[in-house]
């Protein structure tokens, strides 16, 4: 039986969400390899776009891949190299970040970044009908972060919610802790914090707790880290909700790609995984105790 080689190229686990995404990819690969001996996977993780392009070139030159599952580090730089893979006749699955040219990929599995921002914004609007003062912690400066923040800003437009300050917490606990400490020094009155990511939310909560201002404000994180989901589920007054951006989409994409080779199911097309608001009512559904994220 002919083996099918599927290359998987994803960004390295440099922050919590990416770590979860790596975990789900690895987990899907292990499972599929065990189930389907005819499938062979090649996993490479990259810490910058150039390295990712190198990885993809190597897969083409030395591993003869039949399919590529890629989560582009950035859209533009990866477009041409992925197109070359496509032109070589391989199957291409793109995760999360669309390429800058349409029609290259056979399968697109993505989260919805503007939607992530919008859902978060709607929640703020709902919680603060009379407006209020909030601070925002942004991620690493990237298109993703821009889209999320724009979605958020659009959603709270006209609600009377005032963004006192925005700084980059780089999806990092320590950076978020530092930034939040300084926000707390700077603004005597803060009603809520949009941390836009659960790693940052943890840093933010630590800073608020330390300043003894827990009762003044609540925090919305995002992306569904299991600890945070658990707090939502348990009714933590400071962590009322969460917004999903499931790292498991990597596993989904890999699985769908594999299905294309081992079954006749039609899998091409576009799967957008919407960002869902997680509240105490539905939290249990989003709790994955085995994930590292």
């Amino acid at each position: 039986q002919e083996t099918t080689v599927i290359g998987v190229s994803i960004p390295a686990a440099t922050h919590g969400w990416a770590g979860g995404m790596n975990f789900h990819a690895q987990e899907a690969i292990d499972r599929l390899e065990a189930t389907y001996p005819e499938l062979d996977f090649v996993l490479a993780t990259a810490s910058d776009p150039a390295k990712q392009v190198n990885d993809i070139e190597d897969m083409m030159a030395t591993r003869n891949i039949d399919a590529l599952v890629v989560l582009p580090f950035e859209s533009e730089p990866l477009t041409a190299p992925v197109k070359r893979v496509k032109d070589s006749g391989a199957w291409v699955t793109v995760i999360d970040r669309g390429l800058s040219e349409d029609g290259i990929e056979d399968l697109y599995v993505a989260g919805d970044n503007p939607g992530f921002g919008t859902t978060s914004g709607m929640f703020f609007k709902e919680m603060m009908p009379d407006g209020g003062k909030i601070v925002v912690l942004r991620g690493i400066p990237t298109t993703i972060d821009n889209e999320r923040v724009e979605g958020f800003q659009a959603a709270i437009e006209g609600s009377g919610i005032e963004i006192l300050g925005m700084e980059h917490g780089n999806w990092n606990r320590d950076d978020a802790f530092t930034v939040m400490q300084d926000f707390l020094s700077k603004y005597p009155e803060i009603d809520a914090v949009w941390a836009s990511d659960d790693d940052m939310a943890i840093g933010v909560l630590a800073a608020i707790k330390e300043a003894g201002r827990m009762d003044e404000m609540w925090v919305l994180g995002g992306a569904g880290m299991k600890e945070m989901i658990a707090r939502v589920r348990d009714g933590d007054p400071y962590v009322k909700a969460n917004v999903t951006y499931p790292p498991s989409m990597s596993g989904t994409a890999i699985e769908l790609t594999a299905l294309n080779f081992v079954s006749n199911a039609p899998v091409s097309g576009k799967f957008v995984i919407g960002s869902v608001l997680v509240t105490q009512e539905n939290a249990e559904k989003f709790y994955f105790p085995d994930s590292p994220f």
Partner: protein
Amino acid sequence: MAEQTTNAPGKAGFKFDLQALGPILALVVLVVIGTLLNPDFLGQQNITNVLSRSAFIGIMAVGMTFVITAGGLDLSVGSMTAFIAGIMIMIMNALIPSLGTSWGVILIGMGAGLALGALAGAVNGFLITRMGIEAFIVTLGSMVIFRSLVTWLADGGTISLNFALGSLYEPVYYGGLFGIRWPIIVFAVVAILGEIAMRHTAYGRHCAAIGSNEQVALYSAVHVKRVRMLTYVVLGTLVGLASVLYVPRLGSASNSTGLLWELETIAAVIIGGTLLSGGFGRVWGTVVGVLILGLIDNILNLTDLVSPYLNGAIQGVIIILAVVLQRARKSSR
């Protein structure tokens, strides 16, 4: 006879003053700017925040001062912190079933952190002094290795301390004595001991002599390898100490823990007036350097004058300026 020589020390004194004043001046300027921009800047809370979060870099920078003075370098401290913190947490979590949520577990974790730091420093030092490999390469290698190990241990995610134990451990970062937090106290003690060691012990002199001229030191019966080895072991132990204080803050370690701390640490040392080429080190200068770097971040967060995208640019300019202030025609390496 050597009449002109009379001027030499005077001159030296003056030069010393200018060089010494440079970083202090930069620090004062930053404090003034901070106060003007935000009245809460000098508030007890903000000062406490800045000092205690600077303590990690600060503790390591004191150790780095000795390494650099002796002509070495260590690029691995940032990822070493992540690695040590990760292992500490794993050890403590593993001990809870048998020892319960107790200070005993925490003390074992702390001891492990310090021991691991000393060991990691000893490995670096061994490769550098005994195998004769350039410190840059050895510690670049160990930087990459430690970071990779912590990612692997965390399975790409975060290694988190058991919640109950974390709450018990928390006061080590957030608590203190007489209203002064532990990290600040520890940093101060380390800095004072470091200053004494540098200026008032034979060890400090030997470090400077080795950095100035290894051959001369060797001919003067200085145990060059032993002294140099010790600088790395001490630095490693201090990295362990920083990790001991770091873990209770957020109770976790991951791939991104301590990212770029090595550059920040080295920058603090050099801003403080220590020569990167070795031969001269100043621990109190390092402390000033650490505070300068800590304040830059703080001030940028306290104001909205510029796009946050440009924060880095401002940091860079201030780092260079702080050194321009102490530029005194030193060898331009």
